[in-house]
């Protein structure tokens, strides 16, 4: 009897030990956000991705996030803190976190890092980004169909390749409808400042733009468009609630599938450093509903989106001319991936200089 008790106690002890071992092995996934999850734009979608991890893995994985982390020294400190707190996988979700992420990654070789929209990788740093420009091409086409003045206004954050690529794709899309379509660009040098974004929208409208699109993270510009009776597009999230009459469609980011796959890879021990550049084909970029437009425009937009999704159409298919008139890709060619990733020139027709 005594022996039996010992065995039972032993089993209980062993199971308790293994329980605690499981608890210790619970994977902690950290996120660094540039803005608040409530921005209804860029950060909102990353947070949706984080919630998708929670929903998928339940008790196996714990997610933590730090919001409003400025790009720069603060980022390095925050990422280090997450790594120290035992995060096994850390997503840094803005371009400016690139160097801080690499620095911290060098100090924590056992932690896996995923940097969004960057181009520097190491053994424990992956990069991932999404071909937002595919969506930009579609909305450029819609813009040229819907505009009466033939001028669109584009609110840019920072002149980095990701944003320049979007501007170029937008104009290339527009030029398929109206070769003389004009695009005015205003940079606000901030990812998130609703007031400035609204100012920029007002300025562009007063200069004749009747279509507003933005590569910044708040809904302010869309609201100005609604108020002033011009059309606009949502960025990163569906923004139709903010501009029910003005919004034509939104480019919606979807990070959830990627985040779940990468978390699974860490759990399985199969994680390796990679570079992912997903587009409509992998559902990383989706278009919102096409509204406030005639049926024929909607049909064109849907056809274009479908053609991009199937790989039939590439937004940067030649001939593509640079602003200075030189040829970037001849007819039959496509602007190559390296050029796309480091894009630092405008296509012909952009009314701005880099």
């Amino acid at each position: 009897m005594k022996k039996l008790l010992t065995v039972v106690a032993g089993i209980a002890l062993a199971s308790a030990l293994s329980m605690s071992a499981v608890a210790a092995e619970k994977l902690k996934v950290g996120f660094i956000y540039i803005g608040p999850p409530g921005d209804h734009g860029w950060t909102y979608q990353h947070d949706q991705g984080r919630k998708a991890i929670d929903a998928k893995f339940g008790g196996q994985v714990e997610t933590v996030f730090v919001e409003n982390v400025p790009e720069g020294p603060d980022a390095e400190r925050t990422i280090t803190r997450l790594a120290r707190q035992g995060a096994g996988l850390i997503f840094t979700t803005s371009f400016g976190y690139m160097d801080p992420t690499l620095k911290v990654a060098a100090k924590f070789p056992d932690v896996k890092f995923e940097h969004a929209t960057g181009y520097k990788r190491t053994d424990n740093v992956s990069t991932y980004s999404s071909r937002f420009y595919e969506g930009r091409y579609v909305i450029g086409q819609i813009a040229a169909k819907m505009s009466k003045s033939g001028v669109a206004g584009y609110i840019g954050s920072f002149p980095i390749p990701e944003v320049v690529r979007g501007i170029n794709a937008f104009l290339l899309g527009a030029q398929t409808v109206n070769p003389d379509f004009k695009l005015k660009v205003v940079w606000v040098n901030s990812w998130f400042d609703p007031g400035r974004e609204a100012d920029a929208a007002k300025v562009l409208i007063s200069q004749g733009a009747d279509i507003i699109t933005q590569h910044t993270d708040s809904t302010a510009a869309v609201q100005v468009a609604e108020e002033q009776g011009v059309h606009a597009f949502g960025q990163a999230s569906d923004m139709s609630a903010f501009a029910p009459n003005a919004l034509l469609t939104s480019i919606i980011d979807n990070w959830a599938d990627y985040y779940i796959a990468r978390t699974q890879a860490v759990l399985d021990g199969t994680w390796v450093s990679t570079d992912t550049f997903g587009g409509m084909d992998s559902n990383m970029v989706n278009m919102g509903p096409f509204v406030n437009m005639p049926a024929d425009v909607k049909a064109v937009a849907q056809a274009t989106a479908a053609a991009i999704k199937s790989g039939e159409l590439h937004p940067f298919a030649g001939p593509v001319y640079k602003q200075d008139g030189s040829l970037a890709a001849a007819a039959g060619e496509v602007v190559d991936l390296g050029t796309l990733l480091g894009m630092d020139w405008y296509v012909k027709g952009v009314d701005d200089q880099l």
Partner: protein
Amino acid sequence: MSAYEAILFTIITASTPLLLAAIGELVVERSGVLNLGIEGMMVMGAVCGFAAAHVSGSAWLGVLAAVFAGVAMSLLFGVLTQTLITNQVATGLAITLLGLGLSGLIGSDFVGLPGVKLANVSIPWLSDLPYVGRLVFGQDPLVYISIALTAGVGYVLRRTRIGLIIRAVGQNHNSAHALGYKVVAVRYACIAFGGATSGLAGAYLSLVYTPLWIENMTAGRGWIALALVVFSTWLPGRLAAGAYLFGGVWILGLYAQGMGVGIPSQLLSSLPYVATILALVVISTNRRLSVINTPASLGQGFVPDR
């Protein structure tokens, strides 16, 4: 609306929240208190204003709630710095952090909801005058309030007994105390006034500028307001000039970009700051003026010696 009207309208909208927040801080600093919590009070004003307006459907109730929120935050600052004599710089920073965090918490249910916009004034006939009608008679009410407050503060500080007392408390609180003025009470009143105008500035952001609530929507405007107070050498007239200069240079920078002038956008974005620094340098060449106007007791806690 013609192009020049649109430019002026946008400049006024960009400048008004700065002016509102700064005019209160000017009074606070004139009474010898340095409140670095403007950003926190502003963002609390913005969220409470938006929430009240959204729930009640009345933008004016939102404005009222924003003022209350600003005053509540400033009184917290008052109790800490005036009654408990904490360090004003540290307390002000704490108020900013508290405001940013608390507003996110309060506002979490209001993100993504449509806002209520405070309607522009419309005076029959006058608002329809060519060229100046809409600019002079068709702004939103808070613009007029900001101008009236600036003029009022200028008049009170310079011409009235109350203004004299505030300045005395700010210049030398021991002397003011010896003369029988209630230093702490005066400072409480000034701090509350500063909270009220910061709350108004927040309401301007969430009810006029961009009628929505997003976390952190003040985006550093409280700090610019703080700099403008120093820029103005604590004079309301110069404060208004500084606020409109800052807003004007900022908006014209955007215009220049939209016209495709070809000046790097980074340079244009920094121009308002460059202009402010240049103006500061020019002003500080007149040493006498800046020394006279700087409140001598600025930032010092007052403990009466009995």
